[in-house]
């Protein structure tokens, strides 16, 4: 099927054997291959451009090593640079207690499932989680959160029959605190970043419950729109982290680089399946190899 990026780069740089230094000219063909790889992994085209610039700067003037092929050399540089970029910032959550986490994102990204996954993971660390159902729109959204809460044996606050999301959040918070719980996760409805009214809603919810963490939950297969999504949500509710979901699939996940580059918000977690244990901290090195198709 596809020729791997490694093969392509090795090929593109084969004439470099015996050359002394990497230069803009002798790398041009290879960098074109890198650009194509990034674009086909859904990295935003502007981000791809600036990434290539950075790599070029890193490479130009380096001695062509005798021990490896020039193709391998450039791959290592690219891989290291990509891993470093993706890994900037910490995957740690705030140490505050009680710890309040608000989940936001587009429709169907995995917020509700991730709320439960996170609660389950942190429960093992000694937290006492409490979920709060702030999606009053999607049919059976509350039932879904209550069901996953039951599966992990964690309480869930819900209030049916009122659309006042900030008030629900506030009440959920005080109920959770009163029961001595110290991890409160607010599951919100999916919304488009261009839906001003619904963006106002999470801004108000945020103002009222003052979360310590605001996590953007994003489908790992998202396309070029990722940039607008991350940017707008970040401006509206100041994200503290990103969760990439559905990484058990074979999407290349270039959006990770795009969102990281545009917002500088760290990617903290990865969703790796439908089950509530299928959850991991984010590994930048794995993501880098994945984006590069290696």
């Amino acid at each position: 099927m596809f020729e791997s990026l490694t093969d392509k780069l090795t090929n593109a740089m084969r004439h470099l054997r015996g050359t002394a230094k990497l230069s803009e000219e002798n790398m041009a063909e290879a960098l074109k291959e890198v650009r194509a790889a990034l674009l086909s992994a859904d990295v935003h085209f502007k981000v791809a451009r600036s990434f290539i610039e950075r790599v070029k700067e890193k490479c130009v003037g380096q001695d062509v090593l005798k021990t490896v092929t020039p193709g391998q050399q450039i791959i290592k540089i690219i891989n290291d640079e990509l891993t470093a970029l993706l890994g900037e910032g910490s995957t740690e959550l705030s140490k505050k207690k009680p710890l309040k986490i608000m989940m936001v994102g587009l429709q169907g990204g995995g917020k509700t499932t991730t709320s439960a996954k996170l609660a389950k993971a942190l429960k093992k660390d000694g937290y006492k989680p409490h979920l709060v159902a702030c999606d009053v729109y999607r049919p059976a959204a509350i039932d879904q959160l209550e069901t996953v809460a039951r599966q992990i044996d964690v309480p869930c606050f819900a209030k049916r029959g009122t659309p006042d999301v900030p008030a629900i959040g506030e009440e959920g918070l005080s109920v959770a605190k009163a029961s001595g719980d110290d991890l409160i996760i607010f599951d919100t409805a999916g919304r488009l970043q261009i839906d001003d009214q619904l963006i106002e809603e999470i801004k108000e919810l945020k103002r009222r419950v003052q979360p310590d963490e605001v996590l953007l939950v994003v489908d790992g297969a998202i396309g070029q729109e990722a940039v607008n999504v991350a940017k707008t949500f970040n401006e509206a509710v100041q994200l503290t982290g990103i969760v990439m979901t559905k990484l058990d699939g074979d999407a290349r996940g270039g959006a990770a680089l795009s969102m990281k580059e545009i917002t500088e918000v760290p990617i903290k977690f990865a969703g790796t399946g439908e089950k509530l244990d299928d959850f991991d901290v984010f590994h930048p090195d794995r993501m880098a190899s994945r984006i590069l198709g290696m």
Partner: protein
Amino acid sequence: FGRKKLDANSIEELEEALFASDFGYETTEEIIEETQKAYKKDKELRGKDVAAIGSSVLKRVLDGSEGRIQFVEGSPTVICLIGVNGSGKTTTTAKLGHQYKQDGRNPMVAACDTFRAAAIEQLKEWSSRLGLDIIAGQHGADSAAVAFDAYQAAKARGHDTLIIDTAGRLHTKSNLMDELAKIRRVLQKHDEAAPHYSLLVVDGSLGSNSIEQARVFNEKFGLDGLVVTKLDGTSRGGALVGIYRELKLPIFFLGFGEKPEDLQEYRIDNYVDAIFGSDEEA
């Protein structure tokens, strides 16, 4: 794309707009090449000419891509919605049921996602809001058994259309693909031609992976076409272009919102005009 004369900048703008639409590398390059060719011939090329070029390339690529449901007579036409997690299957099931009911047909929906938390409740709530007849199993039940019962009930109650909602599954999971094959096998005990339409529901905001999704679902299960959802966002659902280009799977419906009426029959002209602007606007 305005009236401005073309220059290097506007070519770059075009390239950006095309990439931002997730059309994929090939279609994007094709449109740009044609534009550059035209520019060599005519240095007075304007934005609207470029839009016209893009529009004609896209229409050429999409030629033949309109899918239409042909209902069968005398027994229920079965439409089965499948796809990866969260793409919009359940919502599309409800929307389709609603649309057919509005059209004077007599649809029934079947909740065959017996796996995801509250998936059954979700479709039940839709059906009660929209007054749709529904068959649902218990959580954890065999989804194929629910499909089998649903067909039987649809036929017995005189429904002319059966829309089956299935659980989300990634194309990479072969055991879950086998489960789909089982749904089809049991339906075919009732009617050899069922499901008459197996439609892959694709989230329009996803990128190139939707091509892979379509390829694998088509190889492992067999598809009759696509539904592309979430086009009310800023994404252009350009992945459908890549999918059609590679797999020639027709597109039946587009989803553009969360309300029951937010579903449209796919039309090439409408889709392309939404991207490049219709002639009047340009």
